[in-house]
């Protein structure tokens, strides 16, 4: 038997699917990067289409520390790099070293309503690496916030994330992508204090107002699992705690109905091949969308897909089924 030719013929028969669609997706991303608008929204085809066309505002995190320089007024003219670096070093733990960051070592940007804030990433042999934020007071810097738990962010931007006329700071660690969930932290500046208001891990973030009567933007963190399935976590502003808190998905039926159910439906009926994780994801999304009957039907269909011993197993499906049935009983 000519093994090599046999294997070659076998490999040639493998169909790589909608390659043009995926290539177009890559080119769109490259185009966005070319324009300096690195959208942190990339995911596999269906979500890309669903969210980009129908969803609310997707979080763009391409801007970096120095990107806001043009927005500053003459009275907010930044201090010289030399002064800034010397000041910043003096505020950090002994032995700290500032790291170059795009391309200045100490960058400046607007936070809050229009405050000028200085930022630098640093390395310290004792406390580790991190980011420091400072504010100018009488010609000298004073430390606002420092953090070494998060580490050195790979992307920093300061959009008006909450759509309230103020600028927040978004820190991202690593390089988020479809198979890579990364740490995200959003910082808010009240004029005197920097506070973390949202912390999580995601491969994509969606934000918008999906609850009737809500005044504050809500966030959906899509965290990649496996086989096209995402763990979706919803965050809602808590006035009493002064930050975003994880909120049960069931409180956002509109979001799940509009965006999550269509994603899984598309994957299930147009994706190749059908798999249990997509069926499980859809069952869960239908539950969160309040469509209990459809969820139960999907659970039954999902349990009939082969490879029942692999995750999600029929036990997982059964647990979800019990939860949905319990909900149906309590609502009747």
């Amino acid at each position: 038997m000519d093994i090599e030719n046999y294997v070659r013929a076998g490999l040639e028969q493998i169909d790589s699917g909608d390659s043009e669609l995926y290539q177009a997706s890559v080119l769109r991303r490259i185009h966005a990067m070319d324009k300096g608008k690195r959208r942190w929204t990339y995911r596999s085809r269906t979500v890309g289409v669903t969210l980009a066309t129908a969803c609310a505002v997707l979080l763009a995190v391409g801007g970096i520390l120095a990107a806001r320089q043009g927005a500053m007024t003459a009275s907010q003219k930044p201090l010289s790099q030399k002064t800034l670096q010397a000041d910043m070093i003096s505020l950090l733990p002994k032995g700290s070293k500032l790291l170059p960051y795009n391309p200045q070592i100490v960058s400046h940007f607007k936070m809050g309503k229009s405050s000028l804030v200085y930022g630098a990433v640093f390395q310290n042999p004792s406390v580790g690496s991190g980011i420091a934020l400072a504010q100018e007071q009488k010609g000298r810097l004073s430390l606002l916030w420092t953090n070494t738990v998060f580490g050195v962010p790979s992307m920093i931007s300061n959009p008006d994330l909450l759509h309230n006329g103020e600028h927040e700071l978004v820190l991202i660690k690593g390089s988020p992508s479809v198979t890579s969930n990364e740490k995200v932290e959003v910082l808010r500046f009240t004029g005197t204090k920097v506070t973390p208001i949202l912390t999580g891990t995601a491969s994509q973030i969606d934000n918008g107002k999906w609850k009737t009567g809500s005044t504050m933007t809500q966030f959906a963190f899509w965290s990649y699992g496996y086989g096209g399935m995402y763990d979706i976590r919803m965050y809602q502003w808590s006035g009493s705690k002064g930050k975003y808190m994880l909120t049960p998905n069931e409180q956002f039926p509109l979001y799940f109905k509009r965006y999550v159910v269509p994603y899984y439906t598309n994957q299930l009926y147009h994706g190749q091949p059908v798999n249990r994780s997509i069926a499980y994801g859809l069952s869960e999304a239908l539950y969160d969308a309040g469509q209990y009957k459809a969820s139960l039907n999907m659970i039954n269909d999902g349990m009939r897909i082969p490879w029942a011993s692999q995750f999600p197993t029929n036990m997982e499906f059964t647990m979800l089924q019990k939860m949905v049935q319990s909900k149906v009983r309590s609502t009747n």
Partner: protein
Amino acid sequence: MSSDGETISQLMRAHWNGIWKFVYTTTKNREVANDLTQEVFIQAYKSLDQFRRESSVKTWLFRIARNKCTDYLRSWAFRKVTPFSMIPHLESPSVEEIAIKSLEHAAAVDALMTLTVKHREVVVLHIQEDLTFREIGEIVGASSGTVKMRYRRAIEALRTELEKEMFTGGY
């Protein structure tokens, strides 16, 4: 689009299928192959200026692909994923389709999927991409002698697997 973007566009036209199949046979998951192949070209775009031309563009791309696969195989996501995700479609294929599939390629691909990742990647890169053992060595970070050894062992394992299939009436 920038000239770098044009370059990536050309690279995708030339190498998309090869990279996709390499990623697919390594990860055994079509969805992941779709995602990681995109990541390979995005990574290539970001690193174009670091490409030193010490190796061919093709070797460079496959090295990126291999790194992406390695990251994936080490991730928690993989450890929970179905080990062999060629799950049949809900709509049952016709008897004729099943017969054609099993005769033409399923046995070869199934046998390939039984190999270890190190053996599988060498087979795909050599047989599908016609890369030399030296070029494969650059991609997988091993000497050409090691690659050649892995390839021989892989072919022997494939032969054993396929012969076993024949005797048990697999095709």
